[in-house]
């Protein structure tokens, strides 16, 4: 038993070391990389992956395929910017305000919509996004089609305003990590299990005492609030927002990392985002002058290829590949599942006593 415990300890240590190393690399990148362009790509990866994780809670975990996440993000950005420009409030407080507003709006709007299943829910999410965008274009309070700019000024943490990209890089990294941990927590909680049960069979979930509407509302509110946080980050980073932020194409773009990476996994959007966004940005920078649209074309081809040949996404493919077996056994020295379970059980019993 002691030997088995030791094996498990070594495995956990190795796992922690690998994860720590990856994190360290991301922390050190701005120290070595000085090019604002490369840093910008990383910031883009961070906030798009976060948005994709927000979608994944609703789409991947709950099975409610929303195509309106750009609208939540845009609404969050608008709520923050309006509060800042009209009342001069602190941006960090405005972020909380934006998240609360978007959470409330999403909850209220989607409460009657959850009787709609499957494709109908997707249609309503698209219609909601477009309606919101049209409303903003027609409303002088929201600045119509010309958008809202945030004030420029000295660098300060209090106003979350910097000339350099490095602070945004770190805040973005913290945001992506925080949201990842939150999603991981949700996945392992009662709510996560309830959501996945709803995804597999809603009637069965209701039969065993899960209230589908309640859990779906929780998922949509959390998802929308995270999207609003991304909206706040985007607005603070770009310092200008307009209704173009909420077009249908942006919603689709926010889903792609999750589907390409593997929508069934919390890590899916991160993997998809880390692979697809730098690739897309590279193509955009290199070819968009001669061939506009080439980066989205590549995105589309990748999406179709993944769906056609690897329906579970890149991560789903990795989970069943020899590469993972090799890394697990050789690098991490992962003990067999039996040993892992035995040790975990022993630990559990010890805690019980």
């Amino acid at each position, binding site marked *: 038993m002691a030997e088995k415990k030791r094996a498990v300890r070594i495995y956990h240590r190795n796992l922690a070391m690998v994860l720590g190393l990856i994190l360290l690399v991301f922390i050190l990148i701005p120290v070595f990389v000085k090019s604002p362009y490369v840093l910008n790509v990383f910031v883009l990866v961070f906030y798009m992956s976060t948005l994709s994780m927000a979608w994944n809670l609703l*789409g*991947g975990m709950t*099975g409610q*395929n929303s*195509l309106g996440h750009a609208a939540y993000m845009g609404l969050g950005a608008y709520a923050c910017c309006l509060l800042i420009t009209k009342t001069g409030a602190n941006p960090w407080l405005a972020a909380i305000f934006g998240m609360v507003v978007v959470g409330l709006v999403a909850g209220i709007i989607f409460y*009657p*919509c959850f*009787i*709609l299943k*499957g*494709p*109908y829910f*997707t*249609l*309503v999410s*698209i*219609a*909601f996004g*477009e*309606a919101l965008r*049209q*409303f903003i*274009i*027609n409303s002088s309070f929201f600045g119509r089609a010309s958008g809202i700019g945030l004030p420029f000024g000295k660098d300060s943490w209090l106003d979350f305003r910097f000339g350099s990209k490095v602070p945004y890089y770190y805040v973005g990294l913290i945001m992506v990590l925080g949201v990842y941990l939150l999603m991981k927590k949700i996945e392992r909680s009662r709510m996560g299990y309830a959501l996945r049960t709803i995804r597999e069979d809603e009637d069965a979930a209701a039969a065993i005492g899960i209230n589908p509407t309640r859990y779906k509302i929780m998922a949509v509110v959390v998802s929308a609030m995270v999207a609003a946080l991304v909206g706040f980050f985007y607005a603070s980073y770009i310092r200008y927002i307009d209704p173009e932020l909420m077009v*249908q194409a942006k919603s*689709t773009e926010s*889903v792609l990392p999750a*589907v390409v990476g593997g*929508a069934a996994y919390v890590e899916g959007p991160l993997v998809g985002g880390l692979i697809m966004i730098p690739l897309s940005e590279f193509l955009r920078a290199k070819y968009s002058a001669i*061939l*506009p*649209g*080439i980066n*989205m*074309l590549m*995105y*589309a*081809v990748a*999406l*179709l290829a993944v*769906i*056609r040949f690897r*329906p579970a996404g890149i991560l789903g493919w990795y989970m069943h590949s020899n590469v993972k077996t090799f890394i697990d056994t050789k690098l991490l020295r992962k003990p067999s599942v039996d040993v892992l379970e035995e040790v975990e059980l022993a630990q559990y019993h010890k805690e019980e006593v």
Partner: protein
Amino acid sequence: MSTFLQACVNGLLMGGFYSLMGMGQNVIFGVMKIVNFCHGEMLMVGMYLTYILWSVCGLDPYLCVPIVAVLMFCLGGLIQHTLITPSLGTKSFTNLLFLTVGLGLLLSNGALVLFGSEYRTITTAYSQTNIGLGPVTLPLPRLISFGVLIVISVALFAFLKYSTTGKQIRAVSQNSVGAEVVGINTKKIYILTYGLGTALAGVAGALLTGFYTIFPTAGASFGFRALIVVVVGGLGSIPGAFLAGIFLGLLETMVALFISPSYSDLIVFVTFIVILVVRQTVIIRRK
């Protein structure tokens, strides 16, 4: 009064296109139970095909309609056979949804890469011809298009109602397992259906070119309106789709006339959400 009549006629002429798009979407949605999110892009492909035929071969846009229909039918059948049918087996609704979304991205950005983002128009000898009818004026291209699409709608209705293939399509849409049991080749029907839906979208695109600008995202608004038509008109109902399309066209022009043109999209989307939620609630209550 004459502005009101003119708005009615304009709404009617535009609504015909929404109907045609909605019918294609309706057939696909009815048979495969998937929403075809690239339906609008198919319309755009139809427009560009017409443009190529017109500019290279010098064909009249209305003579292009049958050619475009055949080409689009083949394209749709090919897409169904190579991409959608294999994914139907996985039963993953998310994947099927993003398959069509991905196809839409592929087509619109492919058009952007091939043709650039500039707006193109087809001009014919009769482009600017108007026909006066009492207080209203009817642009000739719109009138011809509307006539053609009425003929196509009636033909489609008759095809689905009376022909053997049409009956097979309806059988598969009602119960695909049952249809397979009685000896219908469902795979073939899927290919036929998707081809038919795409061909209808392509024809709508070809008919639009007479008076509409051609650009890579031209189909987007038509694509979503087709979905509205399906939902409002009722699943599997061709006359329902026709009426819903006309209703949508009239709603748009009426909002533009009485409120403001910039509000027409907003009102259309909000009406759609309300109709969908109310109808579904009624259906659930009735159970």
